[in-house]
């Protein structure tokens, strides 16, 4: 989570308000303490702060305990240490230099701003990592095939092109290739070419020299340079502009590039893995993607299947996602068997990413509960009917739910959920009873996978009677559609 709180520890109390007002000014929430003793460690996690500013540490024993606690988290926030204390602190507590930065005092606004900007990027990157699945997870034939391809190609420096719909986990595959390659101890750098404005992409990929353009106040490394020796993952490459495609092609062919504003060529040792949700062959025909670049990238294609084609992986994926939420200290959630059953009937246009967001959302809205079908957003329940006690849902949402399930012959039937509760305004008894009857029939059909004879048994009624009722409520057409979908 992008965090706004910044902890300041400084025994020189007169400096605290100075830090406080600067942090406020640049939109952070300062937490100011004179000694680490004031921080109740058992009530915090290191990730509660974006960064920790350290001035005079005061009592070394208290600060030592704080450092020990902080270091237990591998990804603890960076320390910004007042320059005069920097070397002493680094030696005494053997901090990794990458986790510690020297801060000038009196504070220079641009310096502090830049350090916190980097801390913010670091945090966002960690968040993305924490929600990433190792994997690809699953036991379906489609996923087993992807895993086999990854194992085949990982050891070679071949360029890989991963295709598949948005949210299928193309980056998961790219990371798996990197992790199984000899480059695994070098950086894996991902860049989403579609999310960066085209005018910024060149400097983002290749870096720039100081003064290369307005705003380039310092020289900056590009992502090719950051990935040196490792793997560069170019996501959504199909969204890249044609002029940028030429530059990427050259970097791939000649293994060299130039920073923006420089004419000195830099050699690069980077394995490129590209991905796109687009059909690049169509894009070539339309003229929006270069054919020569396509053949450069498409040396070893891997296609990630959509979730709807591997629904048998759903329970495993859910378990993995819940374990991830628990591991990150973001609470927990359980899905009831009915909810999982409902989710299996959904078509998952957003794929695994959509599932991940749904599970996380349920964990926030219903912490540590076991959620049933009725707690799922409406789009996941389109094919099912849920009879929920009226008090669990606001009236108007309940009405919408019943109506969307095709359950409401008239508005009065929305009171079906209240079952035997007579509302003050009364009910239309016939519609009310019909609503309940329809809900139960649908559930019986669902439980018996649409087999009318089995559903009739569940309802202790004759098959012919049930067929009659299905016709009456117009459910036969839906059944026919379902079976068509199944056989398709």
């Amino acid at each position: 989570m992008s965090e706004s709180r910044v902890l300041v520890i400084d025994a020189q109390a007169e400096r605290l308000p100075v830090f406080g007002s600067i942090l406020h000014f640049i939109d952070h929430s300062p937490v100011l303490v004179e000694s680490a003793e004031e921080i109740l460690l058992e009530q915090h996690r290191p990730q509660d702060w974006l960064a920790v500013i350290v001035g005079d540490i005061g009592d070394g024993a208290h600060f030592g305990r704080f450092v020990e606690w902080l270091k237990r988290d591998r990804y603890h926030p960076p320390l910004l240490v007042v320059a005069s204390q920097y070397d002493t602190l680094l030696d005494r507590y053997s901090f990794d230099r990458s986790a510690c930065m020297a801060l000038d005092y009196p504070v220079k606004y641009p310096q502090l701003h830049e350090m916190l900007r980097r801390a913010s990027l670091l945090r966002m990157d960690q968040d993305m990592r924490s929600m990433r699945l190792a994997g690809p997870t699953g036991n379906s034939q489609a996923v087993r095939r992807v895993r086999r391809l990854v194992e085949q190609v990982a050891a070679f420096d071949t360029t890989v092109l991963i295709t598949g719909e948005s949210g299928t986990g193309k980056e998961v595959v790219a990371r798996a290739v990197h992790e199984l390659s000899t480059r695994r101890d070098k950086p894996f750098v991902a860049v989403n070419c579609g999310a960066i404005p085209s005018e910024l992409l060149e400097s983002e990929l290749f870096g720039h020299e100081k003064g290369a353009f307005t705003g380039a106040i310092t020289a900056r490394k590009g992502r090719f340079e950051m990935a040196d020796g490792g793997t560069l993952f170019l996501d959504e490459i199909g969204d890249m502009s044609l002029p940028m495609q030429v530059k990427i092609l050259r970097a791939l062919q000649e293994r060299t590039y130039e920073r923006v504003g420089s004419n000195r060529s830099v050699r690069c040792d980077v394995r490129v893995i590209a991905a796109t949700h687009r059909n690049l062959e169509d894009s070539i025909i339309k003229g929006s993607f270069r054919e020569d670049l396509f053949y450069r990238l498409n040396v070893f294609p891997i296609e990630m299947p959509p979730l709807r084609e591997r629904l048998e992986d759903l329970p495993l994926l859910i378990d993995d996602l819940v374990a991830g939420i628990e591991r990150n200290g973001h609470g927990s959630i359980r899905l009831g068997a009915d909810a999982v059953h409902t989710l299996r009937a959904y078509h998952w246009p957003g794929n695994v990413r959509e599932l991940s967001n749904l599970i996380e959302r349920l964990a926030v809205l219903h912490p540590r509960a076991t959620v049933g079908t009725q707690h799922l957003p409406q789009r996941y329940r389109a094919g099912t009917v849920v009879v929920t006690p009226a008090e669990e849902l606001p009236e108007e949402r309940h009405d919408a739910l019943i109506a969307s399930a095709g359950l409401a012959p008239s508005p009065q039937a929305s009171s079906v959920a209240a079952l035997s509760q007579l509302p003050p305004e009364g009910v239309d008894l016939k519609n009310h009873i019909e609503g309940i009857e329809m809900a139960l029939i649908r559930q019986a059909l669902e439980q018996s996978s649409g087999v009318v004879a089995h559903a009739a048994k569940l309802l202790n009624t004759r098959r012919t009677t049930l067929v009659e009722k299905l016709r009456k409520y117009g459910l036969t057409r839906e059944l026919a559609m379902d079976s068509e979908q199944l056989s398709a």
Partner: protein
Amino acid sequence: MKKMKTLLIDDNKAFVVLARHLLAGNGQIDIVGEGYDGFDAVRLSEEIRPDLIIMDLAMPGMGGLQAARLIKAQDHPPRIVIASHYDDAAHREFAAQSGADGFINKQDYEHHIGQLLGQFAETAHV
């Protein structure tokens, strides 16, 4: 034109007050609620069903990006604009990946909101 029911989310309450003031004269926006972290955003979005959420990127507990992902998982999700003090390619990239529909620099809030609303109106007519 129908006003957009708008939720303001920012842990800096003074900024919420300022934003209310800045947006008061905007004929397209009707502020219907405010919250102070990502948890508020997810909960209020579910309850109020706004058309637009303007949300800070960095907040205690749950920041704007995580909240944006989770809000986009609700039925008929609102448009989400992430407001940040840090405006660079990487921050914009993370915001886009979270599913946010727009990104604005907090230092030029009012101006950027106007531009974004214009873009939203154009895409709505397509």
